[in-house]
Every structure is written in structure tokens, then in C-alpha cells.
């Protein structure tokens, strides 16, 4: 009885709450107070660590670079750390953007091939691409370290971007394949009747149609590359070629074992801010990325 009542109250669907709506107005409000407190409390638990870090990074705290009053002392400390925050930001931006660009190009061409052409070895290649997901990160990074050293791409941001692109391919190729498959074949066939080559049909007709897929793939590639820790940890040696997560992590335990917590807070904010902004702007595309994966299993 109560279960049904709260279910009806909790659901916005009018079909379930018809006839009950007037009765729930006062009683429902009382009954729902624990619900509001509970869910509100949960939301606070999830948001608190982020808000606290952002506030703490600009508030005064002994033992940090921001002792008196509020200000950006911790950020200035971060800016002066080793090669400087701008260098690490530039490294991270370079690696992330190169990874996004490579992932978009490779998975668009690949997804187009898998969706629209049949060629010998197609299914095998697709399966092997998906198999990347099955193999542990560390299992691949150790031989990749050796291989990239052989060709002079170890300790290089380009080499790092190539590796990160490879790790993105299972998701992005899958995503682009189903995006192309969702477009009616008549569309590009009509373009080819009009004399377009397959490449022109792809560029002029299909690309606009798969734009949501491209945004999802680009978003995931950016988040993965920007946040990746293990690949740069293994592949990058020089401190001025480090990416931001690695630099902020190394920040701890610098000055005679004393951790600069203030600068670490500032570093976390700089790391997290682009991700959260992108997430909030592109939430729809972020959610779709998960849905496509979940639907196919």
C-alpha cells in the first residue's frame, strides 16, 4: 500500500497517478521528506569532494603557498613547479588534441569501411580491433616501451598520442561503424549515382549524418587522453615532456618529502575543470557513448 503510494508519488507518469493526485498533495509532501533528504544527501556526497577541493585551492591554509587570506597562491606555486604548469598544460593539450584528431580520422575511415564495404578479412580485423579491450593496459605498455624505443618514439609526445589512439580504437571504431550503419544506404548510393566517388560521398553526404557519433568519439578520446596516467608514466622520461596528471602526481613528495597539498589541490582543479566543463556541455553525447556499448553488450 505505502509502496504503491510512494511509487505513484515518485513517478511523474500521469497514467499511474491518475485519481490519486489530489490525495497526495499534503500527505505526499510529508511522506516524501525522507526521500528529499536522502537523495539530497547522496548528491552532496558526490559533489562535496569536488567543491571542497575547488574552495580549498584558493582558501588560506598553513603549510601551503596560500597562508594569508584567499587568493591564487597555490596556483602560482603550481605555475613555478619544475618546467611550469604552462609547459605541462601545453604537453597535455598537444597529446589530447593529436589523439582526438587521429582517433577521428582512423575510426571514421575504418567505421565507413566496416559499415559499407565487404572485403576479405573484414570481420577478422574488426574482431582484432575489439580484442584490444580484452588485453590489460600494462601487458601492452611494456612491449610498446621497447618498440617505441627502437623507432625513436619513446619519450615522445607523438609516440604517446599514437599509443593512446590505438587504445581508443575499439570504442571509436565500434561507435563509428554503428553510426554509419544507422544511415540509410540510399543516401550515399544516390550521391554515387550523381557521380560522386565513395570518398566524396563520405565527406559530403555521410559525415554530416554521423556528426553525433563523431562528437561522442571525440569527447571520449579527449577525456581518455587528457586523463591517462599509466601510458605517460611508462613512456615519458623527461620531466619537461610530462603530461599534466603525471606532473601533478610528481608534485607530491618534492621538497624534502613535504607534500605541497595546496599546489596539489590547484593541480586537481586544473586537471578536472576541462573534463567537467566538457561533460556538462556534451552530457547527451557522453550518455550516448555508454548506451551504444551497453545495448550491444
Amino acid at each position, binding site marked *: 500500500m505505502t*509502496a*504503491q503510494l510512494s511509487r505513484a508519488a515518485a*513517478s*511523474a*507518469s500521469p497514467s499511474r497517478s491518475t485519481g490519486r493526485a489530489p490525495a497526495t498533495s499534503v500527505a505526499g509532501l510529508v511522506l516524501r521528506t525522507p526521500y528529499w533528504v536522502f537523495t539530497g544527501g*547522496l*548528491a552532496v556526497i*558526490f559533489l562535496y*569532494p*569536488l567543491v571542497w577541493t575547488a574552495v*580549498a585551492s584558493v582558501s588560506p*591554509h598553513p*603549510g601551503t603557498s596560500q597562508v594569508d587570506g584567499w587568493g591564487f597562491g597555490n596556483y602560482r606555486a603550481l605555475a613555478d613547479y619544475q618546467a611550469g604548469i604552462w609547459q605541462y598544460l601545453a604537453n597535455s593539450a598537444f597529446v589530447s588534441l593529436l589523439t582526438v584528431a587521429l582517433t577521428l580520422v582512423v575510426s571514421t*575511415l*575504418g567505421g565507413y*569501411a566496416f559499415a559499407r*564495404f*565487404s*572485403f*576479405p*578479412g573484414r570481420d577478422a*580485423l574488426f574482431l*582484432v*580491433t575489439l580484442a584490444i579491450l*580484452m*588485453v*590489460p*593496459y*600494462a*601487458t*601492452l605498455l*611494456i*612491449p*610498446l616501451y*621497447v618498440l617505441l624505443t627502437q623507432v625513436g618514439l619513446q619519450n615522445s609526445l607523438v609516440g604517446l598520442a*599514437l599509443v593512446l589512439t*590505438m587504445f581508443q*580504437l575499439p570504442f571509436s571504431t565500434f561507435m563509428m561503424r554503428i553510426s554509419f550503419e544507422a544511415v540509410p544506404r540510399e543516401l550515399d548510393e544516390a550521391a*554515387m549515382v550523381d557521380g560522386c*566517388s*565513395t570518398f566524396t560521398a563520405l565527406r559530403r553526404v555521410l559525415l554530416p549524418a554521423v556528426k553525433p557519433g563523431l562528437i561522442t568519439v571525440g569527447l571520449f578520446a579527449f*577525456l581518455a587522453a587528457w*586523463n591517462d*596516467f*599509466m601510458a605517460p608514466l611508462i613512456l615519458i622520461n623527461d620531466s619537461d615532456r610530462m603530461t599534466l*596528471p603525471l606532473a601533478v*602526481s610528481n608534485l607530491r613528495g618534492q621538497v624534502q618529502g613535504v607534500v605541497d*597539498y*595546496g599546489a*596539489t589541490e590547484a*593541480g586537481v582543479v586544473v586537471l*578536472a575543470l576541462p*573534463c*567537467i566543463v566538457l*561533460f556538462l556541455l556534451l*552530457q547527451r553525447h557522453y550518455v550516448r557513448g*555508454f548506451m551504444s556499448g*551497453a*545495448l550491444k*553488450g
Partner: protein
Amino acid sequence: MTSSTLTGPAAPAAPVRHRPVGRALQGWLYATPTAAFVGVLFVLPLLLVMLMSASRWPLLSGYQGWNLPANYSRAVSNRFFVDSVVFTVKYTVLATVLLIALGLGLALLVQESTRWKGLLRTAFLVPSALGLASASLLFYVLYSPFAGPFAPIMERMGATFLGTPDAALWSTLFLIVWRYAGFYMLLMLVGLQAVPADVYEAARIDGAGRWQTFRHITLPLLRPTLALCTVLCVTGSLLAFEQFYILTKGGPDNSTISVVQLIYTVAFQGQNDLGVAAALSVLVLGVLVLVNVLQIRAFSRPEER
């Protein structure tokens, strides 16, 4: 442009459906970048790691000759091997149970689309936009006995977040739940949406209570989603690295060393033995493939019957 020269000759004979051979060639052309990435950066390293695991291969001097069983026996007899395997399995079981239960709970909580529930979903999901490394750094400060917001309370209680093995494990689990619960909530929501509304309606008309509906309708219909979540969560947890490398640093008393952390340590910190690290990696790969196959089989059995 390459493609236009390829379609050119075929055009007069068959204007729409091109010659199959030409189409196949074009397909391969479009797939070439994928094949190059997969071949050079995935298949080749995979073969190389097998070779490395069977050779003497110090970090700085490279291949030093064949030594087949030696790396594997050295890997297994590493003094942290058994401890790290036990710890990783324990962590994996706890993380999987917590994340699946909480993911499902949160999903049921925000299932209907109202404005408030939309806000809740966003709040639960925001942490999953952060990198695991960033999240670990964040909690490193949050748990700190010097700078963290709970430092005074913890000091009065005489406790620490990372000071004892158990505390460190549960503190790490809290971080992981915080970072990933929204992610699993989202996967569960997708699964819940696939359950047709009239099934619930029919159950309601038959007088099924809330718990009965959940137990006999939602859970069985959610089976594929639960399978996917379990596979993802077990795989991810078995390969845990950042949270232990950054947050607990394997401590206290080497009690929180995960298997992947051991691989990293053997390869690049101290021992610098890529051969043994490769052997460990191959062992992990084997276990992972086995676990995934078993899980997929376990979850798909009832449908096959």
C-alpha cells in the same frame, strides 16, 4: 582522390553497384589506417610480450637470449606475488559487489525523468568525467591528516584514512565507488529502459508488491546488463593501478600492492627486469581471458537452456 580513380573504370558498366573487386579494394583502403594501428601497436606488441616473457630482457640492455621457464618461475616466486594476487582478488570482489549494488540502487532511484532526478543523475555522473588519476590525487588530499577537511575529526577519534591496511582498502573503495557509481548507474538505466512498461503494468494488476516486482521481473530482465557490468567491473578491478600507485602507494606495509602495480615495479622501479614483468603480464592476460570467458558463460547459461 585515390578512390575516384578506382571507381572511374567501373562507372560505365555498373553506375551504382560497383565491381565487387573494386569495392573490396576500396574497403581495404579505408580500413588500412585501422589495420596499421592495430597491427603495429597491438598485434606486434602482443607477440613481443610473449617473446619477452621467454627471454632475459633487462630494461636497459634489451634481449639477452632465451630462458623460457625462468621468468615465469621468478615472477611467481617474487616476494610480493602471492600477497598482490590475494589483495587484488579481495579488492575486485569488494569493488564489484559495491559498484553493482550501488549502481543498480542509484539507477532505481533516478529512473523516472523528472527535473530533480535529472539533476541527481548529473550529480552522480560528474565524478566519472574525472580521470582516475585526478580522482586519486583529489582523495589523496581529502584523506590527508594535514590538509584534509576531516583531519581534526579523525585526529580526535585517533583514526586515519590510510594508516592501516583495512582503512586503506576501504578508503580506496570509497574513492572507486565515488568515481564509478554514476557510470554503472548509467549502464543500469539503459538496461532498465529496455524493460517494457507494460510488463510492470501487468505485474501491478496481478497485485505484485514492489519487492516482488523487483525480484521476479526487474532482476531477471536486467540479466544482460548485470552481466555486462560485472564483466566490466571485474576486468577493471583486476587491473587496478592508479588508485594504489597514487593514493596508497602500495602501503601501509606493502598491504595494498595490486598485480599491475607489481608489474610496473618489477619493470621500472628497482629490479628493471622487463622479462619478468612480461611474464607477469602474460599471466594476467591469461587470467583475464579465462575470467571473461567463464563470466560470459555463467551469465548466458539460463537463456540457452
